[in-house]
């Protein structure tokens, strides 16, 4: 059986009087794609921001690679973060840097590899997302879909064991959205990394998910495979898929 890489138990997070996450528990094993579906504002993005330590949970426990991240100091949290790739909804490319520099940045900061090794890794990551020709472009010269691909290449550059995707297909046309979804699937096969994919795009969930979890009002409403949820008799779950 594959080892568990993420274990979240009874996570709670609120902003003032707004309880965003009421009680969320989940686990993720190596090589698994878990899609978290939910309406906008249901707390999906807050969940992965708690997971990576960008937000601090009010209650509950998050274990990454069997270590409680609440007990890690900043140095150890950063060591843990090197094993995780994060694709932001907006791609969050550094707009003062070229594509090459964007990908080079974590390598330059976190590794002692030679320039040749770094160049090879950058070329490999860009080849994986099919955008090697964009290597010297600035982010402002890229389309939305290209930015997502470059963001994905940057998330992959450190060869992470877990990938977190925040709304990977939002704002893209249906064809590009499908391309990104298949790219996520290809990356899962190639890198054997576990992934949590936050989305409200059912088509993306259908293509990428090994397992789907639906969040409503900060609680886990349902979970299962795409087929199981597609056949659910719950009206709210049905409204998502039909």
């Amino acid at each position, binding site marked *: 059986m594959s080892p568990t890489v993420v274990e979240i138990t009874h996570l709670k997070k609120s902003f003032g009087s707004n309880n965003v996450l009421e009680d969320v528990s989940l686990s993720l094993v190596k090589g698994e794609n878990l899609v978290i579906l939910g309406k906008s504002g249901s707390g999906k993005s807050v969940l992965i921001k708690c997971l990576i330590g960008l937000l601090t949970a009010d209650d509950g426990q998050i274990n990454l690679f069997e270590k409680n991240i609440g007990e890690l100091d900043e140095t150890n949290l950063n060591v843990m*973060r090197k094993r995780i790739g*994060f694709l932001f909804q*907006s791609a969050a*490319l*550094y*707009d003062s840097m070229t594509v090459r520099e964007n990908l080079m940045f*974590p390598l330059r*900061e*976190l590794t002692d590899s030679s320039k040749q090794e770094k160049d090879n890794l950058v070329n490999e990551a860009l080849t994986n997302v099919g955008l090697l020709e964009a290597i010297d472009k600035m982010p402002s010269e890229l389309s939305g879909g290209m930015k997502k691909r470059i963001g994905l290449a*940057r998330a992959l550059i450190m060869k992470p064991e877990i990938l977190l995707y925040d709304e990977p297909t939002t704002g893209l046309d249906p064809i590009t959205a499908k391309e990104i979804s298949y790219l996520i699937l290809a990356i899962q096969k190639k890198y054997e990394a576990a992934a949590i994919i936050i989305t409200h795009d059912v088509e993306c969930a259908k293509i990428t998910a090994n397992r789907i979890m639906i969040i409503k009002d900060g609680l886990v409403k349902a979970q299962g495979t795409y087929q199981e949820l597609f056949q659910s008799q719950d009206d709210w779950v049905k409204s998502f898929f039909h």
Partner: protein
Amino acid sequence: MVAVVNSFLEELANLYLFVIRFFKEVFTPRYELSELAKQCFTIGYKSFPLVAITGFIMGLVLTIQSRPTMAEFGATSWLPAMVAVSIIREIGPVITALIFAGKVGSGIGAELASMKVTEQIDAMEVSGTNPYKYIVVTRVVAATLMLPLLVILGDAVGLYGAYVGVNIKGEVSWTLFWYNVFQKVVFSDVFPALVKTFFFGFSIAIISCYKGYSANSGTEGVGASANSSVVFGSLSIFVIDMLAVQITDLFFTP
């Protein structure tokens, strides 16, 4: 009223922690030297034309405005020395720092706020790198080192403006002008004025970085950060200047 005071104190405490973090990060590796050089170029070299134009006009206008009063006392020959002391001790550093706060402070505030709202700073953080060291430390160090240089250059151009101003209604040779200037300008005019510019540069940059780094979401947050960077940066110049004058008076006035 209580809420306003609370919010002000909270802001002050956060700024204090931000400054403390700067001193922790600036002396520990890794040192971002290439980014520091890039920031020195952007902050220093690219600000020079603006500082030079302002300095020239400042020297010229100050000389023209001072002439009638000096003439009334029959002291027009003191004009170069008086203008030089004014520029070097006070007007040069303060005006250059205010121009610097307007150009560099607003730029840093807006850039960092924009990086914050587009999640670029978060992206650096989740990759396990240290955005504070890369973004904040480099900009603050660059501004602290570059402003004194700009003030020296601005003062020099300002004195050239004064030379032009003196010669509009009079005739003073280049050599005589500088002889008059260096007859009156002494170490205690130059040294304290130069030292306070390091503090000006530091305060402008750290306030701008703080405002940008803690920006709220949305384009409104970017505008607000740029605006408050300039306002509080400029205010800090006057506060530091007031303290510097008191300290200078204590140590350098006989």
